[in-house]
């Protein structure tokens, strides 16, 4: 590396819903050996309308830098919604990024997040938006059900500047076809192997070697490292840290207890946590694991002093999911009868979806240059009854605006994956009105005049043709 690349911004999205691990244990105790009842913490859950892509969009939005758009987008996930449709381009279009940027998808390994970081750091002259996101399905009663969680993390990397949060000082990668777990293409669930074998035979072999080579390259002693960021259980991380000589380094385990292992996003999520507790100048070692290891040496920088606490904020914004069964339904792990209204054909007119992509992907309406009226969707003739000029509108993005609830209902008749179906009229801060769906809002909570912001979510799914559709929804601020 000629010049150290820096982390300029970081963003995190942890879905609001949390399922207590004790609730999972209680529901599945009959099928599990005794001893799981002491389960602590909660697992973060995608709402029914969230997936790896929607979480990625939210994480990326919270890493947004108004002063510089990225030249490249890397989307890292093992659970991207489409196997063949560019998820990174979908991400970029939801973020309204230029169509001339590079976009790449990384997956097939939980190391994708850290490998993406290393790859981005190697081209430190370009600004890269790196987003890692995973929402892995877990079989009811499985050990993974207790330990996994859903989340996304985003880093904006590029040439360092005074606002940088951390610098990437050195990186090291070791590949090894060690099957700690796997999931074949098209399969729903991971197949996991014994933790002790993984620890003894792989992690305790590879990580100390990678770390010592990393420290040697940087001319540092292990004692200089203040923070050790590594996914995995507390027991394993402690054993590995000792083997690396990093027993004095702090390990922030909040992401494990309060969210769960979020796959490719996990190292970056834990890094976001570590950076919030680090002081400028602190040295950090970040480990990614998956058919080998990535090791990254970082130094916390002065920009941290002014950075917001996105990780703590994301953990704090939570709402308990009291129903284990409803969680199973959201992940299609049980087949609930939603009645005949759920049979509705959701065939997509792709010609229309493409023609209207600015409206649907980037939530762009129109702003009339004659009278200033904002409207959605953008139309040929201005909606303002005092104006009605033709072809006077320019694109106007509403995704980052705020709105106000003008009216709403909680509809128990309409099909909803999480009844009731809540929707209503929203007035945008800059004017304009749209009948919209609300999400992450429970029955009885919404009021007229509530302030809302807008989030990119799954609108619905065409089960007959296996196609997922997305659009923007309102959620209370």
């Amino acid at each position, binding site marked *: 590396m000629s010049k150290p690349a820096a982390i300029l911004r970081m963003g995190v999205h942890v879905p609001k819903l949390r399922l207590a691990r004790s609730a999972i244990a209680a529901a599945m105790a009959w099928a599990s050996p005794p001893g799981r009842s002491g389960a602590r913490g909660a697992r973060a859950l995608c709402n029914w309308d969230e997936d790896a892509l929607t979480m990625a969009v939210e994480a990326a939005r919270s890493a947004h830098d108004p002063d510089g758009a990225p030249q490249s987008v890397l989307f890292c996930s093992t659970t991207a919604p489409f196997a063949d449709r560019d998820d990174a381009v979908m991400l970029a279009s939801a973020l309204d990024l230029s169509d001339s940027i590079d976009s790449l998808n990384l997956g097939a390994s939980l190391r994708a997040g850290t490998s993406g970081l290393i790859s981005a750091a190697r081209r430190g002259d370009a600004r890269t938006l790196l987003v890692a996101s995973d929402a892995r399905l877990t079989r009811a009663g499985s050990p993974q059900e207790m330990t996994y969680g859903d989340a996304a993390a985003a880093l904006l990397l590029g040439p360092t500047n005074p606002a940088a949060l951390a610098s990437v000082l050195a990186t090291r990668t070791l590949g090894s076809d060690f099957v700690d777990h796997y999931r074949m293409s098209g399969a729903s669930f991971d197949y996991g192997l014994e933790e002790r074998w993984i620890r003894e035979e792989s992690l305790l072999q590879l990580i100390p070697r990678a770390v010592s080579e990393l420290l040697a390259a940087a001319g540092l002693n292990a004692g200089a490292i203040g923070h050790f960021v590594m996914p995995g259980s507390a027991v394993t991380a402690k054993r590995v840290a000792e083997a690396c000589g990093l027993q004095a380094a702090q390990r922030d385990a909040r992401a494990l207890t309060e969210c769960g292992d979020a796959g490719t996003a996990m190292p970056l999520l834990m890094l976001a946590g570590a950076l919030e507790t680090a002081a400028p100048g602190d040295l950090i070692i970040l480990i990614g694991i998956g058919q080998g290891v990535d090791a990254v040496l970082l130094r916390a920088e002065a920009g941290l002093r002014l950075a917001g606490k996105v990780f703590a904020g994301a953990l704090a914004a939570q709402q308990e999911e009291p129903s284990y069964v409803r969680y199973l339904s959201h992940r299609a792990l049980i087949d609930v009868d939603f*009645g*005949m*209204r759920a049979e*509705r054909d*959701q065939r*997509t*007119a792709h010609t*229309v*979806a493409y023609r*209207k992509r600015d*409206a*649907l992907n980037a939530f762009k309406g129109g702003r009339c240059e004659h009278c200033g*009226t904002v*409207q*959605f*969707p953008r*139309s040929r003739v201005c*909606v*303002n*009854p005092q104006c009605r000029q033709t072809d006077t509108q320019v694109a106007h993005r509403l995704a980052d605006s705020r709105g106000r609830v*003008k*009216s*709403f*209902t*909680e*509809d*128990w*008749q*309409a*099909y909803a994956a999480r009844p*009731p*179906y809540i*929707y*209503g*009229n929203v*007035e*945008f801060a800059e*004017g*304009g*009105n*749209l*009948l*919209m*769906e609300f999400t992450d809002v429970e*029955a009885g909570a919404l009021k*007229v*005049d509530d302030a809302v912001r807008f989030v990119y979510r799954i*609108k*619905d799914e065409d089960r007959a043709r296996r196609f997922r*559709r997305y*659009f923007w929804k309102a959620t209370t601020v």
Partner: protein
Amino acid sequence: MASGIKDKVVIVGMGCSSFGERWSCGPDDLMVEAFDEALADAGIVRDRIDAAWLGVFFDEQNTGKSSLPLSMALRLPNVPTTRVENLCATGTESLRGAVYAVASGACDIALAMGVEKLKDTGFSGLPERTKGTFEDLYLPTSTAPGAFAQLASAYAAKHGYSMTELKRAMAHISCKSHENATRNPKAHLRHRITPQQVLDAPAISYPLGVLDCCGVSDGAACAIVTTPEIARELGKRDLVSVKALQLAPSNGVEMGHQSWDGSHTLTTPIAARRAYAEAGIANPREEIDLIEVHDCFSITELVLMEDLGFSDVGRAPHDVLDGRYDSGGAIPCQIDGGLKCFGHPIGATGLRMAYEIYLQLLGRAGERQLRGRSGHGPAIGLTHNLGGIPNRNIASVSILGLLSASH
């Protein structure tokens, strides 16, 4: 300025099927039932009809498209037929087509038919439908109750009512229509209910419960219209004439512009203003004897009392609870039970409303016959439809009156 439709066309015959869950009948049966009554009422033979209009909304699980289902069910003699569809204003659109045809001189006698067979879907409530290829990609998959329930949250917030207060007035509306329908043998729902039952009913779409919602019914209604001269040649003496037929569709303001506050319908006052002008009505509160409005949900009827000018803005809950719109009130509303209890076979509804006004004006409404302001029976009645949802809709207002009624 156009001279308008007033008194150019009269109704010489009307028919209406029984409304309800007509499991054993298809749309053809329902049309024949309404048509036989209208033909007998008019005292003409079928082949005197020069042209006919068919109003039907949900063609997909019903008649199929085009006007052929009408021409074929009634075996009309290959006269011109036209299918119209304008959401819940479809029945009134059918009437408008026939009335305009007669007024133009193109036809001597025209038929307006409206029919809906809703109960072939296999579930309760209205059938599912697409909102358009683009709209399906961004609009919520709302239901009719959910879309109309919006009025309640916005109305309560705007006028400072608690939802409990507003729901009391809404409950009165439902109870009043159930009471009226006990005296209508053709109505779908003919039992009395109490305000407490309305308030305790299962939730449909906040704040609407199931007893805030109208019946989902099968049915047909029709009218035979002609000129006053031909009506007299047919031997008719008391003539019911069309005083006004107005339509005001949304142009997108409610959906997209911030000027609409969501607490009422933007189009109804526009249609009403034009209709009162066309009919020469200066003071609707004093001149109109009875009204049939689009009470698809209790909250809809409540806000319509203001949109049509019968209640002051923000005062409808008080007027409702004071009994102003009850059968014995100043302006009886839904004396036949309304959409709520007569039922709401969509394509037929506008014509069903006209049927009730027609019967009342001619003194043929049986047990529920009103005495009118004069004490000699009502002279002027109004019908109103709201097709669509508050966010985008088609409001229709028609005024029917005795041809002798001076306005």
